Every structure is written in C-alpha cells, then in structure tokens.
C-alpha cells in the first residue's frame, strides 16, 4: 500500500467518522426530544448509516 493510498484511506475514514457522528448524535437528540418515535428514528438512522458505510467501503475498495 503506497503512502497516497494510506492518506486517502485515512481521509475516507475521517469523513465517514464525522458523518457517523452526526447521524448518531442527531438521532440521539431526536430520541431525547421524542422518545415515542425511537423505533422510527433508529430505523432511519441505520439506513443512513448503512448508506454512508457503503460509500466509505466503496471508496476504500476502489482506492486500495
């Protein structure tokens, strides 16, 4: 693995980490505000997180 690849992988992971943090944090806020909507918020959160994860894995896979 060359150094540009490693730097790129690091950037991808940083970006994905920020994104996941945003998703998780906002979902927590939403649940705290409306505990009765927990199920719906969790489902939406998991879908968005999965899409983000797919993007990150795709980028890591293509940039290997």
């Amino acid at each position, binding site marked *: *693995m060359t150094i540009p*690849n490693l730097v790129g992988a690091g950037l991808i992971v940083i970006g994905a980490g920020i994104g996941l943090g945003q998703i998780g944090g906002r979902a927590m806020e939403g649940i705290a505000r409306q505990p009765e909507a927990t199920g719906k918020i969790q*489902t939406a959160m*998991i*879908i968005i997180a*999965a*899409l983000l*994860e*797919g*993007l990150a*894995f*795709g980028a*890591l*896979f293509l940039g*290997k």
Partner: protein
Amino acid sequence: MIMPIFAEILTKGPLLKGAQMKSRNLFLKTLFFSLALAFSSASLWATDPVTSKEPSHEDSADHSVSTEEQISDYIAHHIKDAHDFHLFSYNDASGHRKHIGFPLPVIVYTSQGFRFFMSSEFHHDDSGHQVVERDGVSLVKYHEKIYELNAGEHALSFGDDGHHGVKHEVGLGEELSEIAESEEFDASHHPTNAHEVLDLSITKSVFGFLLVSLLMLIAFRSLANQYKKRAVPTGFGRVLEPLVLYVRDEIARPNIGEKHYKRFTGFLLTVFFFIWTSNLLGLTPLGFNITGQLAVTFSLALFTYLITQFSGNKEYWKHIFWMPGVPAPMKVILAPIELLGTLTKPFSLMIRLFANISAGHIVVMSLISIAIIMKSSMGAVGATALSFALSFFLTLIELLVAFLQAYIFTMLSALFIGMAVQEHDHH
C-alpha cells in the same frame, strides 16, 4: 426452491400473540449469550495451534518466519476460499506436521475434459509441489488456485526470479490482499509453465452455501407444513415465525408499498435468512466465510439489481432517462448520472456486506492472536485472559453485525425495489 415455502408461510401464517413475548425475550437473551460464549471460547480453541505452526513452506529458502507473519498468513488463508476444511494442525511425537480437517471434491475442466477427485490428493499442499495425475493431466494447487501443468512438465515454475515464498498478505479478502505486493511480484506471480483451469469445485464456501440452503429448506419446510395442522407453530417454528412476519411487516410492506409488496416478499425473506444464517455460520469455529466472499455478495446484489430493473415501471425509467420537472439540458446531463446510479446501488450492497463480514473476521482472528503475540510479555494466562475477554465482546458485537447486515441488505433491496415500482400520483 425456498421462495414458495415463504409464500405458503405468509398466506397461512397467523399473527404473533403478544402474551408470549416476555418469556420468549428472556429465552432469546439466554440463547444469545450462551451462543456468544460458546463461539468465542470455541474459536479460541480452534485457533490455538497457530502457536506451534511451523513455516508452512518447507521448500522456502527463508526459514525465519516470524509469528506475526504466520498469523497474518493464517488470517489471509481463512478469509480466502479453500478447497478443503482445515480445522487445526499439530506436530506429532515424531515431529511430523498433522492436519486435521476434511477434504472436499475438486471438479475442474481441463484441456482434456472434466476431472474429479478429492482435495485430499493435494496432501494439504498449497505451494504447487504436490502434482496430481489424472488421465494424462497434471494438476497442482498454488494459493488455492488449481493449475494444469503443460505437457512434459513435472513442477510449477515461476518467472525469472522464482519468487514465491511466504508473502505478507494483509487486507480484506483475496482482492485487497494483493495490496502489499509490488509490481515485479505480479509479473512473476503467475506460473510460466502452467495455465489455470475452469474450477467448479465444491469449495469451502460452496459447501457452506449448500449447507445454509439445506438448513433453510428444512427449517422453513417444517414451518410451512405446521400450518396445515395448527394455527400456531411449535418448537423452532416459534422462533422463525416472528422473524418472517418482521421482514414482511417492517421491511417489505413499508418500503415497497401495499400494492406490490407480496410479489417481492419471497425474495426478501430468502435473502434475509440466507445472509443471516451465513453470517452466523461464519462465527462458528468451522471456518466458513461465505458472505465474506465477493463472488457470493456479487450474486446476491445481482439478484437485487435484476429484480429492480425488470420490475421497474414506466415512471421509474422516465425518471432515469428523461427526468421530469427539470430544464431540457439538465435532462441530458442527468440521464447518464441516473443510469450510473442504478449500478452503484447494487455495487454498494455488494461491497458493504463483503467488507463488513471480512473486516469482522479479520478483527476477531487478530484479537484471538493476542493470546500468542502477548504471551512473552504478559504470560500465558494473562495473554489468554485478555484475548478471551476482547474476543468475547467482539463476538457479541459480531452477532449483532450478523443480524444488522442481513437487515440492511434486505432493507435497502426493498427500498430500491420500492423506488422502481411505486406509482407517482402527486402530479
């Protein structure tokens, strides 16, 4: 084969009774934790022989192979597909290397036609030295690929430098494992006096695939049959029924829509239970890595892709090729992007499942290896305790991931299908 059974369950299956939920939850929790405990301790035992593993390539000029290299070699071998089941190895009293496992059938299409034999004929050799003769065809196995030697050749040879010793394989699966190799290795990576054959063998993953299919067929056939006799299933059917209803009511119905969901529920249920069972099978110490093979996830994603495209209605295609509501020049620009978008969706499904499961397996095996790596600094008991604690908790997380990935794959498949079949009546 399985989809009609699901249809039967769905048409005849009654709704879940709420009163039984509490005791069931307790039962499921107990089951979950005992399974996690059993898996993590069993994997620890199954991987232990790495400690005594000798350099596996006796022919290799370099005998000073470090433990770390052996471990990464071992992990890379686990992630890859294999032609036999390798449970563990040990050295017997006379110092010979003994391998415990069982062989699988090899089916290859060579230049002389089909050849069948058991993989035990390679005698656990993966370096291309054990030649199997079958009716005028010489076959060797090198890095889990089967090569046919050219006429008159008796051993595999490689480019000019003949570099084929122990490699440092890191990363996810076969494709990513080539990262560490430089270009000149690639040049001599392929044998010069042999060619690859069409390999239709029942490999470890194919065997696992068939096993999962068989398990699902038995479980769901019996569940479907139960509805002929009674309204509420007994035994294992009580575990399956809520899951079937969950996929139908929480995944298929809201994402595809009331009108069309029934057509696709069979596919979604098959995919869900196949991925989940394969993921769980991958956590057993048998060494399966079915959903961690790109070929498997590729074919699963291909099914989603084909079903989405073939069930797409007029609206769906119109939104791809001639997006309504945007200026004409934008429509031209959007068409190729939208067309590419139909491909990236199943592509991300494929990569997500493959990468998640492979990464999980690598991390579990790396944590288990802590027992070996830290032995000198922490002592055998301390290192094993640390390794056990970490791999136990990771196995718990992996049990969650096993379900989550099956759920995500099914959910996103349902979402994509729903996009293709939904009717736009808001104009």
